């Protein structure tokens, strides 16, 4: 797992992918911070984080599109599968590397709460829970992207599918938030509304069921990815 993590993490920064991800992430953070937080004289980063969630549609697609697709198209998956490493180790190494790139971007983004702290007095608990919710939400998206990447050899198809699926996740959130939708539909699709659970974190409320929910989503998609990798042996 460690070897896989190192290889993937270095790979992100030996190619433009890592820099594009971190650069675009910080650019939009700065833009939303100025236009929404400073202009509205808000003492929290809720507006910035909310807007950033929209950007994840394509940023996560960029981050995860090549994780498995490239291995399959270049036949390097043969090296990984024929090595004495468990499929879990390979999947986890790749997943954690993608999460670590998000981590790099988030470390740089700490500049915004620092700036906010200079001009106002934001509640620390809200900031911490916002970051925690943001990490859990985006890590869930990365797990979904990794799974989609394991379905196709074509990186472009992988990116478009990831974008599409995450877009549906946003639509689900819209369905559950509008009163025009029948209650039973709202309840059923609510189980898939990843964004709904994130809003509580923004208000400083860290609920254990929500944390477990996000970990379950992450585990589910990592498990599906692993199964997909193993299944290829039986094709």
């Amino acid at each position, binding site marked *: 797992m460690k070897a896989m993590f190192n290889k993937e993490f270095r790979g992100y920064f030996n190619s433009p992918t890592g820099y594009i991800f971190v650069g675009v992430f910080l650019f939009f953070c700065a833009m939303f911070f100025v236009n929404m937080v400073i202009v509205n004289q808000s003492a929290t980063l809720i507006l910035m984080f909310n807007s950033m969630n929209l950007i994840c549609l394509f940023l996560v697609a960029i981050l995860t599109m090549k994780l498995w697709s490239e291995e399959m198209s270049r036949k390097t998956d*043969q090296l990984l599968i024929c090595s*004495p490493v468990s499929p879990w180790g390979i999947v986890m190494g790749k997943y954690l590397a993608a999460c670590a790139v998000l981590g790099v971007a988030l470390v740089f983004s700490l500049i915004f709460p620092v700036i906010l702290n200079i001009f106002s007095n934001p509640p620390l608990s809200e900031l911490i829970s916002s970051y925690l919710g943001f990490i859990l939400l985006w890590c869930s998206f990365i797990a979904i992207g990794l799974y989609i990447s394991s379905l196709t050899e074509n990186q472009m198809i992988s990116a478009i599918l990831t974008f599409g699926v995450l877009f549906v996740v946003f639509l689900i959130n819209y369905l559950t938030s509008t009163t025009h939708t029948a209650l039973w539909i709202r309840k059923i699709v609510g189980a898939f509304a990843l964004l709904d659970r994130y809003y509580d974190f923004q208000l400083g409320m860290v609920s254990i069921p929500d944390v477990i929910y996000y970990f379950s989503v992450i585990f589910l998609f990592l498990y599906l990815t692993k199964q997909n990798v193993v299944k290829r*042996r039986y094709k």
Partner: protein
Amino acid sequence: MSVIEIKNLTKKYGTKTVLDKINFTVEKGDIMGLLGPNGAGKSTTMNILTGYLSLTEGSVSVCGFDILENPDEAKKHIGYLPEIPPLYIDMTVLEYLSFVFDLKKIKLDKKEHINSIMGMVKITHVQNRLIKNLSKGYKQRVGLAQALIGDPEILILDEPTVGLDPKQIIEIRNVIRSLGENRTIILSTHILQEVTAVCNKVTIINNGKIAAQDTLENLAGSIGGKGKHQIKVMATREKGAEVIKKIYGLLSFKFEDFDGEISTFVIDCGEKDLRPDVFNAFAKADIPILEFKSAEPTLEEVFIKITAHDKKVKEETNNESNVQ
């Protein structure tokens, strides 16, 4: 001692049977050529052996470890170079080999081990170059180096010389031959000269079944022709035949051709080496021998005969079942 044991191995892709209950063993120190026409099932066999593909039925054991029950232990003993070398082309050679070293969780001294392998396959001078900038021959060497990481007992090489130019082919064959001095190697190819040049055992696989498995000499003997020699002498048919008949121990001979001055015979010496007697007999008769060469069947002839026989048997079986 068998390092690889394959029993009743069957692989099906849907309803298509690619490997049909094949059995074979590979002894320690063997360099075994896995021969077969395209689509015979060579790569599938190798992919199952290395754990890349799963099997439908049967069992595969590597150094005593079952590939399904103990995959990690089995894989530790294998170095695998697939038909398309699994290279990360954006890495340098050194970065790539370092990654493979970590991936395989090798306990040796990293720097020393990688350096010795790069020296073995002669890629030390390109260690800091990006793999994508290397020639096909060097990429193949890097792939071979990857398979050698961890010093595995068994090397499995799937068509290692495919797509290389003649010079590169000879170089890679020499590397493989030197590696075979202290390793067991399975080499898949459809280039028959490669097997003759490198291997001491051959397994012929055809239509997903083992058509033959033996040493090159025994395979030649199995289709007849072992101990046969072709001689060209400067004499008429009658004079030549008269001398040959007097050679003690000769099993038989056959006249082949006379071009007005030179007669060609094929003599069958059987198990004995009668070459000195043949030479002396013609010298005594004052008849010059212009050419003396083995008339044993080449691997090409063995291969064609065996695979053609398989095809014939299959056709006969199909005809019988159609009649029924």
